[in-house]
Each structure stands twice: as C-alpha cells, then as structure tokens.
C-alpha cells in the first residue's frame, strides 16, 4: 500500500461528482440548473475586468473620484453601478507610484474582488504564486515579465480577510489627455492585481 493509496482506483471523476451534486440539488428543488445558467451569464457579462478598468480610468481623470475611491472603495465603485457580494464588506484600493509597486495575493486560499476585477486567473490560484509571491516578490514579478528597477519598492498585500483589494496602476505618460473610454481599454486584470505596469 503506497502513500498515495488514499486516491482509490474507483474514484468518481470530477464531472461525475458535480453531476451527482447537481442532480441531488435539483431533486431537492434547489434549482441547480438555474443557478448554473445564471452564474455563466454573470461571469461573462458582469464580473469582468472591464469594470475595474472603468474604475481606474475614472480615477485617472477625476481627482475627486480618486480621493473617494482611495477612502472608500466600495462606495466609490457603487457610483459607477458596480456592486460586491455582501461578505466583501470593503474594497481597498492601493495606488502605485513611480517608486512603488503594490501587488495582491491570498496565501491561504485565493480571494479576490472578482465582481470588480473579474475572476482570478489560473496562476493567481496556483500553489506557486501563493507560496512564492510573499517571500520572493521581486523574483516572481521578474519571472512574470515585470523586471522592476531597485528604485521601485514593493508592497505585497496578503488578503486573508474578506476585505478585497485592487491596485490602481500608474497612468502611462503617453495617455495623458485620453478619454475615460480610451483609457479603460488599456487597463488589464494583471495591472489591477499588481503583477504588471501599464
């Protein structure tokens, strides 16, 4: 009996397992199919990084909005019609500067402000990112293509409570004067996680 014997030969596949749960939920009148359809609609239409991009673009062009956003993120994104689930009681927005790079992670699971910046990418939830970003921040950012000069200081935010975080990137010099709509197009999910600069 090898160590790995806990994984049985006749284990149901992940598809069989979720099929079973879906069927049992349906049998109990818990409207599983409806919830799945609604979820698929929500992630395609509502929980999209374009939300966060709009927030960033507005903060770049409206100094008063930016002040409100940094003071109370949840209330400020509400001005743009964006909402968060009830258990995300607070949205904290951290602003990058020419000498500061903020980056977010969750070492214990993989929490994110998904209704604002979109659901997290696969790598964000991987054990590699969770284990290494807090301890080897500069090294990992470099591996991800963000080779920061020593003059840029790094702050890592390990978001282990239900407060959610997003990063406000530095506006690129050449985009000064662009419209909000044009600016929103250049804002990426990676930049709002803090693993890329624009």
């Amino acid at each position, binding site marked *: 009996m090898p*160590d790995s014997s806990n994984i049985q030969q006749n284990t*149901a596949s*992940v598809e069989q397992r*979720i099929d079973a749960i879906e069927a*049992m939920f349906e049998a109990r009148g818990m409207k599983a199919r409806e919830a799945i359809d609604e*979820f698929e609609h929500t992630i395609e239409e509502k929980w999209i990084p374009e939300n966060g991009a709009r927030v960033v673009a507005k903060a770049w062009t409206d100094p008063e909005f930016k002040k409100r956003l940094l003071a109370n993120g949840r209330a400020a994104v509400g001005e743009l019609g964006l909402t968060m689930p009830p258990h995300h009681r607070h949205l904290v927005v951290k602003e990058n500067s020419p000498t500061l790079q903020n980056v977010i992670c969750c070492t214990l699971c993989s929490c994110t402000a998904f209704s604002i910046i979109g659901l997290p990418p696969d790598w964000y939830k991987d054990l590699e990112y969770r284990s290494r970003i807090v301890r080897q921040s500069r090294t990992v950012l470099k*591996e991800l293509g963000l080779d920061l000069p020593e003059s840029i200081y790094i*702050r890592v935010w*390990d978001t282990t*409570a239900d407060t959610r975080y997003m990063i406000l990137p530095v506006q690129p010099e050449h985009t000064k004067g662009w419209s909000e709509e044009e600016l929103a197009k250049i804002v990426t999910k990676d930049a709002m996680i803090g693993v890329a600069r624009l």
Partner: protein
Amino acid sequence: MDGVHDMGGRQGFGRVRHSPKAQTFHEPWEKRVNALYSLAVRLGIFNMDEYRHAIERMEPRHYLSASYYERSLTSLATLCVEKGIFTREELERYAQGQVPLSLPIGPGRANVATRQKFKIGDRVRVRNEHVSGHVRAPGYTRGKAGVVVDITPAYPFPDAHAHGIHAEDEPTYDVRFNAEELWPNSADKAHVHVGVFESYLERA
C-alpha cells in the same frame, strides 16, 4: 491549523505558470462547481469560512494534487454531507464511484476574550499560538511584529464562524511586516501587509 494549505513562504515550488491571456476556467465542470457552491452559500447551507475550512481539511496529499476547482468541489461535497443535504452513500451512488471528502472537523474557538483595540501606528505582534481549527493568520506571521497601518471594518471571527460557534464581528488590522524579518536573510526586500483579526494580535 498548521496545514499544507498555509502556503505563504513555503519553498520548493517552481515557476508560476503565467500568461497575459490566462483563463479562470479550463473545463465546463469547473463553472458548475463555482455556481453550486455559491448557490449553497446563498441558501445558507454553509458560510464562506466553513467553505474555506473544509478545503483546508482535505487529506494533505489530496489537497496538493487536486486542482483549485477539485478543492472547491471537495469542500462543497463534504459540507453538503456534513450538513445533511445528502448522505455520502447517496452521493457515491449518484456519482457511480467513490467521492473523496475532507477529513472530519475538530473543535473551533470563540473570539479571544482578552483582545485589545489598536490604532494606526501601533506596533503589534501576532500571538505565538497554534490554533488547531480554522484560523486566518498565515503561519509566516506567527510571533512576528509589525505596524498597524489601517483598520478595516469588522467581520465575523473566522475561527468561530467556520465551526458553528457564535462569532462576534471584530476589526481586521492591516499590519505591515518587513519581509526580511519574516524570513531573515532569505526573502526579497519588500513590505508584506496582512489583514489580521484583532483576536490574533497583542501589543509588541
């Protein structure tokens, strides 16, 4: 608990598989897992702390070998069995095979009675304690000192909330640590900020 899920600072992992076009989901079943555990939370079958702790309770080899959504699925299945929504036997009959579940839950704890309020600028230390149930202080902060730089609104105390114990809301303090103090001589220079519940902290 000092489980394998407590990943921060653990060594031996390779490069992050990053691409600018990275996806959230890779298989259709993953979306169904996400949808149905969200549904279960909305229906009040379990809360997010119970959900997270049920992932942590996975057999450690299973935790590490499973994908993110298999972990979600295992938590959903485990909690539905534990809460009496269906039995393990019914689940395995429907699934036509064995379904690995998380290991049994142990005791939790209530908010710490001796907890104190802190203010921005206070120097604090994460208590040197080992909580066998659910706990949201990463292991790498244990016994380490930092500075309170912000205070965020109160949440239910997860150590209680994950165990069906009455959980009073308490603030989380945004505590700033130096990476070099967390991992002397073996970390990149940076500040690491952690949202720490009041019960986990003492004055440094």
